[in-house]
């Protein structure tokens, strides 16, 4: 078998691909969109939030999967929440120590990674039944897919709302800024458009 073909067929790659594209958490499953909307007015915040989420999701899925055979069924939700909360505390403390300004700007949204349904959903739907390696990749894929859509939304919101990208002004002075893009309704509109766009270009499939 040719290596390219093998790669495409391997379980690891398909697990990753499903999270990033086929079953993307944002536009396919409509999960975890609270923070999608809240942190996407500036690209910098989005990048930091995305990295934090990728770390927390991948590590939580890995840990949940490691412990899957010793976790009693009745308390598994509680166990998962505690595992997730531990990793989120790590992210929160790291941000406070190294990036205090961004930590301030993100406010409660870092802590809210705990209740991000993507993590909970992946732990419950995949990590609880699959080996640690695959669970890690699954969490990684979903979190990366999530972050990519977030970045796309943030790109347009920052560009149209503030006329900047990563804080650097890129639009000429005479362009009228759409302040609404930096405000809450802009987030809703951009997300709606993103869902529309991605679902249109994605091959239709039976739901």
């Amino acid at each position, binding site marked *: 078998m040719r290596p390219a073909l093998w790669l495409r067929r391997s379980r690891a790659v398909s697990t990753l691909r499903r999270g990033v594209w086929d079953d993307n958490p944002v536009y396919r499953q*409509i*999960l*975890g*969109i*609270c*923070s*999608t*909307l*809240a942190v996407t007015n500036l690209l910098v915040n989005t990048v930091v939030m995305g990295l934090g989420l990728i770390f927390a999701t991948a590590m939580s899925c890995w840990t949940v999967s490691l412990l899957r055979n010793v976790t009693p069924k009745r308390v598994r*939700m*509680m166990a998962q*929440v*505690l595992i997730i*909360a*531990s990793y*989120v*505390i790590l992210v*929160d*403390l790291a941000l406070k120590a190294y990036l205090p300004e961004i930590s301030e700007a993100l*406010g*409660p949204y870092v*802590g*809210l990674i*705990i*209740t*991000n*349904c993507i993590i*909970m959903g992946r732990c419950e739907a995949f990590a609880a039944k699959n080996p640690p390696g695959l669970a890690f990749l699954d969490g990684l894929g979903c979190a990366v897919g999530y972050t990519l859509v977030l970045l796309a939304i943030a790109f347009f919101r920052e560009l149209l709302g503030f006329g900047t990208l990563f804080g650097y002004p890129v639009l000429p002075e005479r362009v009228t800024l759409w302040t*609404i893009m930096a*405000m*809450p*309704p*802009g*987030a*809703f*509109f951009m*997300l*709606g*458009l993103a*869902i*529309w766009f991605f*679902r*249109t270009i994605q091959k239709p499939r039976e739901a």
Partner: protein
Amino acid sequence: MTQQGAFTIFIAAIFINNILLSNFLGMCPFIAVSREVRTAAGLGAAVAFVMTLTSGLNYLVYAYLLEPLGLEYLRYIAFIVVIAATVQLVEMVIERTSPVLYYALGIFLPLITVNCAILGVSLFMVIRQYSFVQSLAYGAGSGVGWALAILAMAGLRRKMKRSRVPAALEGPGITVILAGIMALAFIGFSGMVPM
């Protein structure tokens, strides 16, 4: 900020700083459960109740347990445990008193635990350094505001059933856009109370 009266905070949490439309919290059940007015009303009431209760409980836990012991960084874990316990309680009460509502809400009842709006209220309350009464008012106001938003959305979506929407935009897509228009309307309230 901390000098505001409890009533002002209550009203502001409903209209001006609506937890859903301006802080984007509790979106998942908002999108998923807003298809019918009845279930939306049931979930809205449950969320409002849990929110009021947990904001009070979490205030007590934070002010009398975590702060004196210097364990503020454990607040995520402490808050989520309090919330999970409260939701469990509400679940048992609803199952006993109204089995119909219990089955209508189904999986979304336990999922209130991971409703970010509930945890969000507790975290905002700590960040804004509210007192006990202010926290209760903020929790109740946010709960009522959330219920109001999901009810309005359920009403809108009933009308939307008869409209033609591009296929890829159907369901969640158009719901999010509707929420955007609602958020736009709620911006009209800002400035009513200085926040």
